[in-house]
Structures are given as C-alpha cells and as structure tokens.
C-alpha cells in the first residue's frame, strides 16, 4: 500500500502544440514506505510532479498511479504539505486538523483521540486553540504536517515544506521529520531544491534536468546511510560532516551544476 508510479509522464502547459513543455517522459517508481526526494533547478517541473500525484493537475501524456490506480482527483489517501502551509486562517489549530477527520465521518471521540495524538507527535499540545496567524512559521508548518499525518495517509506529498522557514527552524523541522519517519513510516515524495536536505532525509534522491524536466539520475542514499550508520548521530550537523554524506552531496551538486543556464543561474 502506498506505492507511486510515473509512467512516461509528459506535462505541457498551454496548448498541446506550442505550449510550454514542463515535463518530458518522467519514469519513476516509489516503493511503499520509501522516502524519495526530487531535486532540480527552479522551474524544472518538480513541483508539477508532486501536484500530479496529489491530483491537482493531470498529465498531458502518460499515467501517474498510486497503488496501481490511476490518479484522477485529490483525496485524503495522498496528504499534501504545502510550502506556504495553506492552513485555514479562520480555523484554530484543532479545527484545521479536525477537518479531514470530519470528512471521513469519524465519531467525535475517535477524532479527539487522533487529534490529541497528532498534537502530541508534533509538540503542539499547548497551541491547540490558537489561530494560525498567532503561530511562528515553524509552528504553522507543524500544524500542516499534523493535519496531513492525522489522516493516516498512504502517501505523504511534501512540496518544499521547509522552504519558507528560517535556517534554524528548518534544521529543527528536518530532524523532526526524520524522527517522525521512524515512528510512523510513510511513502513520502519530497520536493526541494536544497541538496543537503534531500540527502539527509531521503532514501533515494532523483535529480531533474532543466525544463523540460527529465529525471537525470537517481541516487541511492539509503544503502550508504545504512552502511555508514548515519543514524548513530542525533544531530543533522554531525551527519553532514560525515565523509559519505559530503561525497553524495557533492555528487548531486555537480549533477545540478551541469543543469545551470548559460548565466550560471
């Protein structure tokens, strides 16, 4: 349960002939409970990949499927965490988390229980009745993650979830996500342009080319992580100092550098 598959997926924005080709024949398989990060230059279509799994956009050609079923519409089996949080400003933290559970038609007692455990998981207990605008960016993103996790989705789609956070908060959230992935492993598709973040979090990292985006190469991080036992380190900076980490990071950097435009941007 929870596998994702891109099968020769093209995406053209605008008219099919003469439009902008954003994605070119994307093939990618993500296994159940696997954490895959996609990195790529800005505008390469990595977010579009995620939006197609979410069901917000349809491929122009090819098929995106989850559990072997073609994606046609958004649904709570594929929870999304957005870069700009997308919390409902007129709902409290609790109400934001509750909406998806109410949509499932769950009884109040079960909802309360699941909300309480999601709040605990994300260290949000003392903010349950706050409104989003009363919270810091990091806190808001915790709420968004709680809102996704509480649905117990098969697939978690994260679109540069820490991109809008300051550097310190970002590090805390990255460590938090690793902790979460251990407590409660999910199939995760994670979009980012931060190479370190991708290497630190993912089992595999897919590198994309400039537009029209293609998958250029896929690196296996997990085998290195396990072989070098990264997990004995608690802190992200200690992992980032490991030779094996630096090596992978540099490899991806070089691969991305080749994709820069003539002006180096």
């Amino acid at each position, binding site marked *: 349960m929870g596998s994702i598959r891109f099968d020769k997926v093209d995406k053209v924005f605008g008219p099919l002939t003469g439009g902008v080709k954003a994605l070119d024949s994307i093939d990618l398989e993500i296994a159940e409970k696997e954490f895959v990060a996609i990195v790529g230059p800005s505008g390469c279509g990595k977010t579009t990949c995620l939006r197609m799994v979410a069901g917000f956009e349809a491929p122009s050609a090819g098929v995106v499927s989850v559990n072997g079923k073609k994606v046609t519409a958004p649904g709570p089996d594929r929870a999304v965490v957005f870069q*700009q949080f*997308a919390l409902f400003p007129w709902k409290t933290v609790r109400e934001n988390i509750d*909406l998806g559970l109410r949509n499932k038609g769950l009884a109040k007692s079960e909802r309360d229980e699941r909300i309480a455990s999601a709040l605990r998981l994300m260290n949000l207990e003392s903010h349950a009745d706050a409104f989003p605008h009363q919270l810091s960016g990091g806190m808001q993103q915790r709420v968004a993650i709680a809102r996704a996790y509480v649905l117990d989705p098969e697939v978690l789609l994260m679109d540069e979830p820490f991109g809008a956070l300051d550097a310190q908060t970002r590090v805390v959230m990255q460590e938090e996500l690793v902790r979460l992935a251990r407590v409660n492993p999910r199939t995760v598709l994670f979009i980012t342009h931060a190479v370190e973040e991708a290497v630190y979090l993912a089992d595999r990292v897919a590198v994309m080319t400039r537009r029209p985006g293609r998958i250029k190469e896929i690196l296996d991080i997990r085998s290195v992580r396990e072989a070098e036992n990264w997990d004995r380190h608690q802190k992200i900076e200690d992992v980032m100092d490991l030779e094996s980490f630096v090596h992978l990071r540099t490899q991806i950097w070089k691969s991305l550098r080749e994709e820069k435009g003539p002006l180096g941007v």
Partner: protein
Amino acid sequence: MRDTPLSFAERIGWGALGLAVLLGTWTLLTASGLVPRPFLPTPLDVLDRMIELMSAPFAGATLPQHLASSFERYAYGVLLAALIGVPLGLLMGWFRWLDDIVTPLFDGLRFIAPIAWVPFAALWFGTGIGGPVLIIFAGAFPPCLINAYRGARFVEPRLIEAARMLGTGNLRIILEILLPAATPSIVAGLRVAAGLGWQSLVGAELIVAAAGVGFMMVQAQANVATPTVMAGMVAIGIVGMVIDVALRQGEAWLRRRRGLEA
C-alpha cells in the same frame, strides 16, 4: 500632502468648515432675497420644520412614523437581497455551470436601475408592501451577489487545494472555506447594498407607497411645502449615514474578531 497626518481636532475643524460654508451660502442666498423663500427656505426653517414634524403629523403621520414605515420596507428588501444574493453568489463562485446560467441574465438585469422597476412594481403590487420591497431588492441585490461571487472566486487557490486533498465535499467547502474567505468581500458588499437599498427606497415610495418619507415628500411637493420636502431629504441623509456608520462598526468588529486587525 496626504502623508502629513492631521490631529483629530484639525479633522473635525475642516469638516465643520465645509458644513459652515454650505449652510452660510445657503442662508445668504435666501436672506439676500436672491432666491424667494418659498422655493428655498433657510436652514433654520428646515430645522424648525423637522422639529415640528417630530410630533405634528403630515400626510397622516409624524416624521418618525414615516421613517419607521420606510425602514420596515427597506429592511425587508435588503434582507431578501442578502438572503438570496449571498448564497447564490457563493454557489456561482464554486459551480461553473451555475455561473454560466446566471451571469448572462444577471449582467442584463442589473442595468435596469431600481427606479426603472417602479412602473412594473406598481402594476404588480399596487400600493402594497411588495412594490417598494421589490424596488429596494433591485437596488440591493447586485452588490450582494457580485461581492459574494468575487469573494468566492478569488479565494487563495492553495486553500481550496488543501480542502480538496483533505477530502472535503462541495457543501463543506462552500460553508467552511468559501464563506469565511469571502466574508470581508461579502460584508463590503452588504454595506454597498444597504446604501443602494436606502437610496432606492425613496424612489420606490415616491410612487407606490401609502406612507413613508418618500410619500410624505410627494405630498409636501403637491402642497408646495418646500420646508417639509427638505426636512424629508435631511432625514433620509441622516438615516443613511446612521446605517452606514452602524455597518462600518459591524465590519470593524468582525475584522477584530477574525484577528486580522490589531
């Protein structure tokens, strides 16, 4: 110049100056004999007449009684416009097919000014309450619908995507996402609707009503009772201002409650 702030006293002062210039010119025109007094009574004449009308009936009722009966029609008309316009606007903002059905009709109908509904309303309802209510409705309905529609159409797309990925159904999206997101726009629309409704009211009463400020003014016009006509105008202006101030307060309260303003 706009960037230099004025103190509260200064702003009151400038406002008072404007009023004084208006009243001064008016008084001068009449007192100098330039305009005959039966056509343009002095401000004091109008004030006297207003005070008199507070207790003395004209055309069957005192000024407060006329106002009360006007206000009743007005309240029905605006309420009806809000109750139909706001939900319809939200639904149109969500369902494209409904938008396609209603928009062409609405775009045609809204150019029929409220006053243009008067003959039709008179034919249909005679002097009953239905006529004025229809005319006020015609004035107040468009901003209710347009603002609810725009508010719903321009909701942050991410919020709708978030709601959809959470498995939210249409009804719940309309009530819990579109409605709260559109509330500032809806409230602004209601304020405009309240103003337009009140403006249409008098037009409606000039012809169809059997009581009300507009009716009082028409009767006074027939009797060449200019001070009474003007007293009616002043009363309409004051009530309109009171309605607007009340709705502004309501809007500010709502903003504070939503925590959007300190």
